[in-house]
């Protein structure tokens, strides 16, 4: 039960993008299509899980004074390996994600989880945490990309990231009414702003409900 909590924590309650607002650079930049979103999400998840695992294995050996440089070296190595592998096996995804693959190194989520979770917990828990956070990141980017692609291009498409000729689906819904602003950087900011506002409003409704319930209970007791 506790293990499940570690996993789901990153997916919703402490979602890295929607709640903690970490790693926004890449999430805004690459959320132009579902394929990019999934590809980037996978890359981040792999790096997160691996870095969490390695760092929690080494957590007792790493001297406290130089832990940050050591973390950075480990993360940079992992990112470079992922970058090389993507260049080899997912070339089209590699070109469309571009500089944002190497920039995973400075993605605050990864260093943040290394510092706040992996350096204090067991390897298995750390893997779960990394997986949860990675899925949370992927989910968030997927949602942003969903709205941006459907408004910006008037359709939705999803390719196999490993083989760009294999198309899973490619819908054209209202091509003539696409608002191309949403493909541009400005659209990314607007989309994420509206999604965050929507989440806020849900939270407020929930909070009001809880308050009402408390009041009711209180009045019964009286």
């Amino acid at each position, binding site marked *: 039960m506790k293990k499940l909590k570690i996993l789901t924590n990153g997916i919703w309650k402490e979602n890295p993008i929607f709640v903690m607002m970490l790693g926004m*650079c890449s999430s805004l930049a690459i959320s132009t299509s579902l394929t990019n979103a999934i590809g980037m999400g996978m890359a981040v998840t792999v790096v997160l899980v691996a870095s969490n695992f390695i760092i929690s294995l080494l957590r007792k050996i790493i001297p406290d004074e130089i832990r940050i440089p050591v973390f950075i*070296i480990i993360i940079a190595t992992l990112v470079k390996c992922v970058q090389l592998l993507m260049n080899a096996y997912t070339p089209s995804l590699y070109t469309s994600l571009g500089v944002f693959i190497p920039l995973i190194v400075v993605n605050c989520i990864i*260093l943040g989880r290394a510092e706040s979770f992996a350096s204090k917990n067991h390897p298995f828990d750390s893997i779960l945490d990394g997986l949860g956070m990675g899925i949370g990141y992927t989910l968030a980017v997927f949602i942003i990309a969903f709205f941006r692609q459907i408004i910006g291009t008037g359709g939705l498409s999803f390719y196999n990231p490993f083989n760009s000729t294999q198309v899973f689906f490619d819908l054209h819904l209202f091509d003539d009414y696409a608002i191309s602003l949403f493909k541009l950087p*400005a659209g990314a900011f607007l989309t994420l702003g509206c999604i*965050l506002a929507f989440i806020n409003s849900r939270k*407020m409704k929930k909070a009001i409900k809880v308050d009402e319930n408390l009041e009711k209970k209180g009045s019964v007791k009286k």
Partner: protein
Amino acid sequence: MMKLFGLFIALTFVNNVVLSKFYAICPLMGLSKNPKNALNMGIAVIFVIFLSSIITWLLYYYVLVPLDITYMDLITFILVIASLVQFLEMFLKKTSPDIYKSMGVYLPLITTNCAVLGVALDNITANYNLLEAAVAGIAVPLGFLIVIYIFATIRQRLDIADVPTSFKGAPIALITAGIMACAIMGIAGVV
């Protein structure tokens, strides 16, 4: 000369780091509520990016390429940046404690600012020569400074403005950034 000037304008405004390349959004959202702090942060970033952009360029073309180990670029760059930030911190602490006091908090944050690593990597992928890399090293963080300063002043006003409750805080800040990005697109048509 004209070409360098064009590059400067392009990198400062049109391809603005924050609003069109999405680098450095974390510091923008996180700590740009006070214009004075934003200004200090911006100046510190100019320092670091200018130096790191030149050092990483030299290291790449005079060490990594001759040794044929260009796959070490990422780790070299990030270590250069981290030690540069550390060095700047120690230097300021010794020579001018006043500036250190006002900037000290932001310095460690610069290491994880995507703009620093982003510029170093872009210099290589865009095939810039040393002079162009140096221009990029000033133009890009200057664009960051301008945006983060304007953004901070806007956010100060937003605090007293009557914003719908669910938009308060981060959402309205993002929408503001979106509108600023639209404004910057206008310049793209001019150049």
